[in-house]
C-alpha cells in the first residue's frame, strides 16, 4: 500500500485499530457502528437516490456528493442489525470526511485489509468494506467528471 496517498484520518483510524488486541478491535468497530451518522433528510426520504452495495451481506446504501469546492461528502446507511457493516461504513465516512476528489480517489483499494480486522472479523467480511470503498471511489469519479 502506498503510504503517501493515505489520508491522515484513515491512517489514524488504522493506527488506532492496530494498537489494540483482537477482541478490543471488535469493540472499537462497534463504537464506529454506533456512531454512523444518520442520513440527512434529503436522502432519508429518498431511498431511490442511494446505491446499493452488493458486496456487503446486509442491505447497505450509499450516496456521494461532490461540492463546488471539489470536496467529497459520503452518506451511508445500514440497518442496526448489521453492526459490522455499519462499522465499515462509519470508518470510511469518518476517514474520508472533508477530503478532495483527488485525495479520495488516491486511497489505496486495499486499505480495509490493513487496519487489523482480517483476523477479528474474517477476510470474507472485510471484502464488504472493500466493495464499499470501491463504490464510493467510482461515484466520486463519475460525479467529478460530470
Amino acid at each position, binding site marked *: 500500500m502506498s503510504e503517501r496517498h493515505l489520508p491522515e484520518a484513515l491512517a489514524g483510524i488504522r493506527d488506532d485499530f492496530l494498537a489494540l488486541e483482537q477482541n478490543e478491535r471488535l469493540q472499537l468497530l462497534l463504537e464506529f*457502528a454506533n456512531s454512523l451518522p444518520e442520513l440527512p433528510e434529503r436522502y432519508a426520504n429518498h431511498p431511490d437516490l442511494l446505491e*446499493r452495495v*452488493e458486496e456487503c451481506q446486509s442491505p447497505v446504501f450509499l450516496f456521494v456528493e461532490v461540492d463546488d469546492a471539489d470536496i467529497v461528502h459520503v452518506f451511508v446507511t445500514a440497518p442496526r442489525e448489521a453492526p459490522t457493516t455499519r462499522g465499515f461504513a462509519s470508518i470510511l465516512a469518518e476517514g474520508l470526511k472533508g477530503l478532495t476528489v483527488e485525495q479520495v480517489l488516491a486511497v489505496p483499494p486495499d486499505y480495509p485489509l490493513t487496519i487489523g480486522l482480517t483476523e477479528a472479523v*474474517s477476510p470474507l467480511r472485510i471484502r*464488504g468494506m472493500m466493495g464499499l470503498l470501491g463504490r464510493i471511489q467510482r461515484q466520486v469519479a463519475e460525479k467529478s467528471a460530470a
Partner: protein
Amino acid sequence: MAVERDPSPAFAAFAHPERLVSTEWLAEHLGDPGLVVVESDEDVLLYETGHIEGAVKIDWHTDLNDPVTRDYVDGAGFAALVGGKGIGRDTTVVIYGDKNNWWAAYALWVFTLFGHEDVRLLDGGRAKWEAEGRPYTTEVPAPAAVEYPVVERDDSVERAYKEDVLAAIGTVPLVDVRSPEEYVGDRTTAPAYPEESALRAGHIPTARNVPWARAVAEDGTFKPLSELDAIYRDEIGLKEGDDVIAYCRIGERSSHTWFVLTHLLGFQNVRNYDGSWTEWGSAVRVPIVKGAEPGEAP
C-alpha cells in the same frame, strides 16, 4: 446432567422434539446448571450489540473454521474453544442466532460432527426473542473454563465431500437449498450477497431446489410437521430410508435444511455438503446443469 427438554406441544410431532426449545422455555431456564446458551450470527458484531443474558458467542468463521485449511477446527481446537466457554461434554447447549438461525444451525451441525450429544436450537432465533420484547444485555459472561475431552471430528456420517456428491449423482437425492436464481444459474450467490464465490453458475445434476427458508414460518419458527412433509416428502419425493445430501453456497443454509430433515422429519442419513457451490462451481470438470430442471445424471 442434561437439562429437561421443552415439552411444548408444538414440537411433539417432530421426530426429535428434544432438539428444539421455545423462547418461553429458554426464558424460564436461563441460568440452569448444566445449560449453556450460545449465540452464532452472520454478523460478527451482533452479539456485542446485545445478547441473551449469560449467552456466549461462537462465530462460524473465526471460531469454527480452521484459519488456514478450508476445514473445521480439529478435536483439540474444538475442546479448547467450547471448554473455554464453560461447555462440558454433557452440557446442554442451546444455540440461537440471526437470519432465522442459519448460522446457529451451522454451529449445531459442527457440534454434531464432534459428537456433542445434547445440542438444541432456539426455535425462531434472535428475531422471535426480539419480537416478543425479551431483554438483551451487553454484559459478556466470563465462564470458568471446563475440561472438554479432545474428541476427533467424525465427518463420515453428517458431512459429504465433493467426491461423495459426484458418486451420489443419480442414486442419492440431492437438495439444493439456494435461491431459485442461484439454482437456475443466473447468479452464483444469494440475491444481495457478494458475487464472488464461484466461477460457474447452475446446479448439480439431479438436485431438486428447495430454498431453505421454505421450512420457516412467518415468525421465524419452523413450520409444523404436516407442512414440512408436504414440501420434502410430497413435493420432491424424499422417502423413508433415503440417503440425502443437501448443499448451498458454503454449507450454512444447508445446515438449516440438514437440521429440518434430520431432527424434525427424522431422516437417518442426511449429509451436508459444506464445500457446496463455492467448491463445485469452481471445480474442474464436474457436471453442472443450468435452468430450472434438475437435469439428468451424466
